């Protein structure tokens, strides 16, 4: 395959940045998208140019590190995959591919296609946990049965990989899908119910402070989510938030 790549290059956070065109040849359909970029980088290094910086690590779709906006879609045209699991057979010979970083105020660009997603960590630190210390003396794991349906729903919400595709896809750069996945997981489990009220208030507050936008129910986040996190989670978080806002402190 022969392709034309138009890639966002930006030296640093304060640089203006621009799209740069790179032709590339001999691309195999079995290559992953990132392996295609490896080939380009190898060529750039050979020519004495600076390779393109992009985030990646596990290359099996679970770490959430890779993050490209490809032809106007987070993680590219395929559904339910991260960029590292996107394969070149999804593109046509001769195609032009546009590659950009996540664009959101809360995710400033570090270099080229690499952005700073530490805002997600700060939202987690505001309440994305159950306050239980490590002791070896908690109750037996089977002491509290959990209906399978609840456990399964909690699991589905918990499969969020924190990649930020939801934010990148949203016209408002909202982080509602990410935040609601964690709020939902813990709200559905008896272990998380104890702190449910504070959790949802603190996490939503932090989300606002970090500069993420509001949700206007376009649903783009769920379409682009590589883990197919459901919009139901946002509805559940809204209910949790309302309940918490209206109730007095316990």
């Amino acid at each position, binding site marked *: 395959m022969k392709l034309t790549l138009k890639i966002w290059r930006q030296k640093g956070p304060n640089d203006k940045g621009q799209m740069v065109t790179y032709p590339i040849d001999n691309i195999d359909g079995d290559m992953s998208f990132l392996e295609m970029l490896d080939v380009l980088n*190898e060529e750039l290094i050979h020519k004495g140019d600076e390779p393109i910086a992009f985030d990646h690590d*596990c290359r*099996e779709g679970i770490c959430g590190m890779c993050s490209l906006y490809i032809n106007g879609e987070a993680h590219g045209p395929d559904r339910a995959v991260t960029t590292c699991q996107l394969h070149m057979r999804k593109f046509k010979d001769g195609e032009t591919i546009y590659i950009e970083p996540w664009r959101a105020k809360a995710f400033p660009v570090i270099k080229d296609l690499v952005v700073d997603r530490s805002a997600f960590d700060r939202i987690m630190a505001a309440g994305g946990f*159950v306050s239980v210390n490590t002791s070896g003396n*908690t*109750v037996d*794991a089977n002491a509290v049965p959990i209906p399978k349906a609840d456990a399964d729903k909690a*699991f589905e919400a918990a499969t969020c990989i924190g990649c930020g595709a939801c934010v990148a896809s949203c016209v408002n750069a909202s982080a509602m899908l990410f935040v609601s996945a964690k709020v939902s997981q813990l709200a559905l489990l008896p272990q998380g119910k104890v702190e449910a009220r504070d959790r949802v208030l603190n996490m939503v507050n932090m989300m606002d402070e970090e500069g993420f936008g509001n949700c206007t129910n376009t649903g783009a986040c769920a379409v682009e989510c590589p883990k197919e996190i459901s919009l139901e989670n946002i509805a559940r978080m809204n209910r949790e938030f309302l309940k918490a806002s209206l109730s007095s402190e316990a």
Partner: protein
Amino acid sequence: MSILDSKIPTGPIDKKWSTYKNNIRLVNPANKRSIDVIIVGTGLAGGAAAASLAELGYNVKAFCFQDSPRRAHSIAAQGGINAAKNYQGDGDSVFRLFYDTIKGGDYRSREGNVYRLAEVSASIIDQCVAQGVPFAREYGGLLDNRSFGGAQVSRTFYAKGQTGQQLLLGAYSAMSRQIGKGKIKMYNRHEMLDLVIVDGKARGIIARNLVTGNLERFSGHAVVIASGGYGNVFFLSTNAMGSNVTAAWRIHKKGAFFANPCYTQIHPTCIPVSGDHQSKLTLMSESLRNDGRIWVPKRKEDAEAIRQGKMKAIELTEDQRDYYLERRYPAFGNLVPRDVASRAAKERCDAGFGVNATGEAVYLDFATAIERYGREKALTSNVENASLETIIELGREVVKSKYGNLFQMYYKITDDDPYYTPMMIYPAVHYTMGGIWVDYNLMTTIKGCYATGEANFSDHGANRLGASALMQGLADGYFVLPYTIADYVADDIRTGKISTELPEFIATEQEVKERIERLMNIKGTKSVDHFHKRLGKIMWDKVGMARNAEGLRWAIDEIQKLRDEFYSDLRIPGQINEFNPEIDKANRVADFLELGELMALDALERNESCGGHFREEYQTEEGEAQRDDDQYAYVAAWEYTGKPSEAKLHKEELVFENIKLVQRSYK
């Protein structure tokens, strides 16, 4: 007499840990506030330790090279975590888990450490459930279990094919709580490049800020290395692209002994290599062997036809297939341990029965399971006189609910749908049992420097059983280190903050600076990846699944030559003081180029076959690994002396008081 003291407590095996805990020194809460602990790596071992130590009151500084602690490669573990809960009532116990682990490790691990691991395993499940980890459950609301290789009980807890993710996010959320409280100071995008030793004790690290490229100094009263394994020395492995040996190798060069580096786990079920562009290999969970049957064609002509694309797997009838694991190992069948399954696949492919265009693949087939589950489902959902098509459709649904994400991953990578055609799999480098030598306290041969999780060597011997890595990482982090570290830092309650202006910090930073400048100034013609790939090829060909003395000697020689070439022809574009991933990679590959040589040396020195270490010269008539317990029942702990090939060997004899050494058999 060895200079190595494993510090295993005396007394009966089932009392060692509790006696130990009752006798160690504690640090009172007020004093914990004046103790700083550095933790390098935020996977299960590091993340769990960071959270637990911070909860206890210590000041933790945690480091990861990724952009968030949640991304450590523990996240990619799929199948499950073992624990001796015996919820299934199938005869499991702490002793049985201990026994299976020692046997699975081919009798090359320490009894004391392994028993402790089995003992705390049950608490891990309790702790994780309390954190909100959504394990798989039965309809009655209780936890579900599955079986893994090398065990005849169901003791594996799981969360679909994302168990590692769920456990890591549990540890990450526990860390997040402490980060919010300021008890953990988290350093993302930082990579440890050296250890600082002051008066013979580990007192800090030099780390590179991967965003600015600047070197930074950090001090602490103890340093914990939880940086994972070194499988990436093979370039192609199931490890993440960034997984590296640097933290471990740096402490090795500063005095920590490196134990059993040749013990590498080659996982039997990975997606085969598809071309030269390949950057990593993807694992298909061992849990698939619960329901998948492994086979190759019985006749060479059929294998040949399949390789040429003239025939399809599903065209072969039952009697034209060789379910070779079921044939060779009737007692364990498809659930033999990983080393055995990998070698058996290699044996069939080498003999010319491999499928795939490359001839390096075998089938993992779900047709039988789909039909079995389908019949069961038809009965329980009252579908009367179901046709075979309906049954298979129902069966596919059941298989989807069990392994859906794995099947999807396979489909996305290969473009083949495993619901309709068997998967093709081949062994790939997955885990390293070897690692930094530690005593019972998990302390290395450097005072105050600890190694936990995959980074140490202690629990898995020469072969790790499936679902035991998660168990060990969390056991070390949640339940072992928090006790053992107290006994050491109890001496430091009056020490006060360690200054990073000490001459040792300045000198170590200078060493690191010069190292990076040396790499930058080569200004050669070849990229880091170029060298990494060549190293990987040498390692896979000669220090991989099967090894022999001649090949190992050749490998040592070749690696030395490659290292010389690396230092004369490497090209790193860009600048030092900026975000520059090529420098990150160069630092890692420089260390892999030394480690590879030590691995080959260790493999050459060990004139026996055991677990993941298979020397062609030492096998039984049936082609099984042949141990030599009289000569080699020891841990090989290597001391760095200036050159990897001249490392000095120290032996820690392994003492077996509770388990009798026998030829490992899964027949």
